[in-house]
C-alpha cells in the first residue's frame, strides 16, 4: 500500500524538480498578492495586523488554485493517467500519492514563506508561529479537496475557472479555521481550538477526498 504511494510521490516530485518554474511562479503569486494589500488599504500597523490572517489565507487559497488544474491534466494528456488507473492498486491510493506530492510542492513552500510575509504585516512572533502552523496544517486539506475538483473538471473547456467555482466554496471551512487561529492568537484568545479543528478537517479530507477524486477520474476516463 505504501509502496505505490511512495512510487507516485517519488515520480511527481522528480517531475516537479525538472520544472521548478511552476513552483516558483505560484510562490511569487502568493508573495505579490499579499504584498499588494498594504498598498491598497494603507500602511497603518493596527489595520494590517487585523487584516493579516485573512489576507494571507485567501492568498494561500488562490495560490493553491493556480497549480490545481495541472494536477491530473498533464498525466491525462500524455496517457500516463490511464497507466496509473491500470496499476494493480486501488486508484484512491494513487491519488493519495499525487495529493501528498502536490502539497509538498505547493502547500509546504507557502507555509515556509508565510512568516516572512507576516512580518510585513507587523505580526508578533507568537502569531507568526501560529500562522505557519495553520498553513502547514490546513494546506493538505486544500490539496485534497482541490483534487476532487481537478478530477471533475479534467479535460473540460475553461477547466481552470470552473475548478475555482467548484472548489473555492468547499475551501471555506479551512479558511475560517485557518485564519481564525491566527486571529484568535492576535487578539489573545489562543488558537488551539481552531488548530485542532483544522487538523480534524485535514485528516478527514485526506481520508475522504482521494477516493472521491478516484471516482471522478474513473468517470472522466470512461
Amino acid at each position, binding site marked *: 500500500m505504501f509502496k505505490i504511494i511512495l512510487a507516485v510521490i517519488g515520480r511527481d516530485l522528480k517531475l516537479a524538480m525538472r520544472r521548478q518554474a511552476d513552483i516558483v511562479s505560484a510562490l511569487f503569486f502568493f508573495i505579490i498578492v499579499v504584498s499588494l494589500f498594504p498598498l491598497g488599504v494603507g500602511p497603518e500597523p493596527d489595520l494590517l495586523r487585523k487584516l493579516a490572517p485573512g489576507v494571507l489565507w485567501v492568498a494561500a487559497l488562490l495560490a493553491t488554485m493556480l497549480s490545481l488544474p495541472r494536477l491530473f491534466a498533464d498525466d491525462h494528456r500524455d496517457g500516463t493517467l490511464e497507466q496509473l488507473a491500470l496499476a494493480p492498486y486501488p486508484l484512491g491510493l494513487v491519488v493519495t500519492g499525487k495529493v501528498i506530492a502536490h502539497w509538498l510542492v505547493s502547500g509546504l513552500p507557502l507555509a515556509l514563506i508565510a512568516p516572512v510575509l507576516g512580518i510585513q504585516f507587523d505580526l508578533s512572533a507568537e502569531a507568526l508561529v501560529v500562522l505557519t502552523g495553520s498553513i502547514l496544517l490546513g494546506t493538505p486539506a486544500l490539496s485534497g479537496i482541490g483534487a476532487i475538483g481537478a478530477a471533475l473538471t479534467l479535460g473540460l473547456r475553461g477547466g481552470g475557472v470552473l475548478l475555482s467555482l467548484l472548489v473555492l466554496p468547499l475551501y471555506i*471551512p479551512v479558511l475560517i479555521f485557518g485564519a481564525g487561529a491566527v486571529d484568535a492568537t492576535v487578539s489573545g484568545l489562543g488558537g488551539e481550538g481552531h488548530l485542532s479543528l483544522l487538523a480534524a478537517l485535514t485528516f478527514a479530507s485526506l481520508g475522504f477526498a482521494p477516493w472521491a477524486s478516484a471516482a471522478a477520474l474513473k468517470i472522466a476516463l470512461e
Partner: protein
Amino acid sequence: MTDRFNLYRFASPATFYPLAGRMIPWFVVAAVIFGAAGLWFGMLVAPTDFQQGEGYRIIFIHVPASWMSMFIYLVMAFWAAIGLAFNTRLSGMMTQALAPTGALMAFLSLWTGALWGKPMWGAWWVWDARLTSELILLFLYIGYLALTAAIDDTRRADKAGALLLLVGVVNIPIIYFSVKWWNTLHQGSSVNFAKSSMAVTMLWGMLLMALCFWMYSIAVALARVRTIMLERERNTDWARAELAGEKAVGEQSS
C-alpha cells in the same frame, strides 16, 4: 419481484413522461390555491409585529424559499446517490431539472433576506450565519450548474454532477458549522424569530406559503424533466411518437 418490475417501469422515461404531463396541472392549481391562501393569511390576517412593523411580512416569502433551497439540494443529493448506485437514467434528469429551481430559491432567499435586512438592521447585507450559509449554498448550486453545462456527454455530466452533489452534501454541515463558529466569534448579528412569540395566523401563513413553494417546485421540476427527457431520448420510438403527436395536434389547431 412484481414490485421491482413496477418501480423500473415507473422510472423509465416512456412511462414517466405522460404521467408527469398529467400531474403538472394539479400541482399548478395547488400552488395557486396555497399561494393565494398563504398571501391572504400573511398579508392581511396576520397581526402587525409590534417590534418589526409591517416589514416583517417578507418572511412569508423568505422563510419558505430558504427551506426549499435547502430541501431541493437534499433531494438532488438523494437522486445523485440513486443514480451512482443503480445507474438509472431518470436520476440524472431529475437532478438536472431540480437544480435551476434550487438556485432560484437560494437567490430568492438572499434577495428577500436583503429586503428584510434593510428595515431590520439598517443594511442590505449583514454577515449573519444563516445568510452566509445561504450564499454558499447558492455558490454550490452555481458550481453544479456550471459543471454539468461544461460537459457535453450527458452520461459523464450526470455522473460528475452526482459526485459533486454528494461531496457538497457531505460538506454542507461542515460549512454551516464553521460559518456559525466564525459568526459567534466575530459577534455578528443574528436573526431570531423564535424569540418573538409567533401568532397562530403567522404560522398558518408560513405553512401555506411553504406548501405553495413545494407545489410550484414540483410542477416546474416535472415540466423541466419532461423537456430534458424528450431532448435526450429524441431517437427512441416513444419520443418520436410523442413529438409526431404534438406536431399533428399543432397542425390541426392552426
